[in-house]
């Protein structure tokens, strides 16, 4: 496949999937600029390896994004201070009574260490199983379960309303 054909395929892929990828990047970083950086880097790596990707390009891009996010978490931890100053630009569609909880959860999520945050996003935003999450992060399943458990425990500490919710995510207790 020539360079032009690769570029055309890649462009079509990005046009179709970049918004979903951007949302995932934003959920990790909590900042538009940091999310753009993260996604841009992941897409660049995806483009560079386009011919060698065996399977889903989106899965590959996501894997790179989560991996990069966790591996550069100390740098991103500095950016975290910025993320607190950025509020969502649109009010969520959910009921007004839950908006404060969502806001609190959002801020609490952004205070979590990168690996915990990545696990929670993968598990509860991307709807991935423990096995799939472990595969993306390159961590053992037990570690993923432990990170999810600790992350949720921390969220419950930070957001009492979250702790008061009716039940706990079922998979988390499987560690």
């Amino acid at each position, binding site marked *: 496949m020539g360079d032009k054909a690769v570029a055309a395929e*890649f*462009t079509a892929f*990005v*046009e179709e999937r*970049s*918004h979903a990828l*951007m*949302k*995932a990047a*934003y*959920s990790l970083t*909590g900042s*538009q600029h940091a999310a*753009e950086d993260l*996604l*841009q880097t992941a*897409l*660049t*790596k995806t*483009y*560079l*390896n386009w011919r*060698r*990707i065996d399977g889903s390009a989106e899965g*590959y891009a996501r894997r790179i994004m989560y*991996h990069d996010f966790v591996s550069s*978490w*100390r740098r991103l*931890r500095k950016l975290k201070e910025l993320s607190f100053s950025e509020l*969502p*630009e*649109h009010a*969520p569609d*959910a009921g007004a009574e*839950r*908006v404060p*909880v*969502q806001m609190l*959860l*959002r801020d609490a*999520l952004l205070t*979590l*260490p990168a*690996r*915990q945050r990545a696990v*929670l996003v993968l598990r*509860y*935003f991307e709807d991935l199983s423990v096995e799939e999450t472990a595969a993306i992060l*390159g961590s053992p399943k037990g*570690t993923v379960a*432990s*990170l999810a458990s*600790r992350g*949720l425990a921390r969220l419950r500490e930070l957001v009492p309303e*979250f702790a008061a*919710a*009716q*039940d*706990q995510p*079922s998979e988390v207790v499987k560690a």
Partner: protein
Amino acid sequence: MSQEALLREAIEAMTTGVRGMDGIAATAIARGRRIRRRQRLIAAAAVVLLAAAGATVLYQGRPASAPTNIAAGVPSPVRTLSEPGARILAGWALVPGPAVQEFPQPDLRVLRADGGDSVSPTGRFVMRATAGSDGFRLSILRDGKEVHNVALAGAEAFQWSPVSDIVLTTLSNVEGQKGFATIDAETGQVQSHLPVSIPASFCGPCTFSWYPRGNEVVVRQAEDFTDADGNFTGRGSTFLFDAVTGKATRNLPLQVNVSGPGSWSPNGRYALSETERGSQLIDLELRQMTQQLPGRAWFANDETLLVIRSTPERGRELLVMKLDGTITEVITLAGAFTKGNLPVLVIRQ
């Protein structure tokens, strides 16, 4: 509502207002092409460096009466010469230059290899790394003829073993995981170990290099350790792997940024860590830095360091230094090629 649903809803809400990026595909393609061009440039530079090193590679241990043509394509004579000014210093060969391939000691000869080649420590083989879009292709040559040609996707940084005809290279796969491979110049057999089992999975710089005895390879783990809550629990380590099995053999509780066998004292007590400001001499038993050195450094032997110092006033100098920092000799350098297992120093005549 369950916690799971609440959390999902919160993340959904958080990303509701996320903007897309205009032209993100074009930007990624442009960046990718720039990176690829840079990689090719670096690869080309590496070949040039190899050529520079190959032009004055030293060879120790072969009888002077059995010279071998080692250049690829264009055979180059190997000579045992008696260039004035060349001498042994603390076990290292200092060669007047530039481009002088002469050495007076009967047990030492300088082999000349034209082109971007590097000679094995036994002098029997030459390696030639050619950059491609997907990594390097390695040619192994003997007596000027190619005996093996190995394509290595994701390979970089080739280094001869300090003691045998084995080439070490760093590998990476599409997931960005790192490992290494050894290539036996005799048989052409490649042994890949990818990925290696570094506990925290991250390394940096992820370049594997030989440990002096030639049975282990080294890589530095760059990341600090944190627990699941992100609390700092300790510094990263330097990991050593068995060169044959690829299994981790031990780790040193220091982040030592080493470049090759010369970064370690032969007795294993000290290591030299490269920094932006020069090198640091680190006592591995005391686990602390004992000297800040003013430039790139190598162990000549257990007690002696060779340090290249560069100052605006005096230019480049080779310092012969004891481990306590005492400078015993200063030699003005016309150039210093440091690629490969030995520093090949070119002294101004």
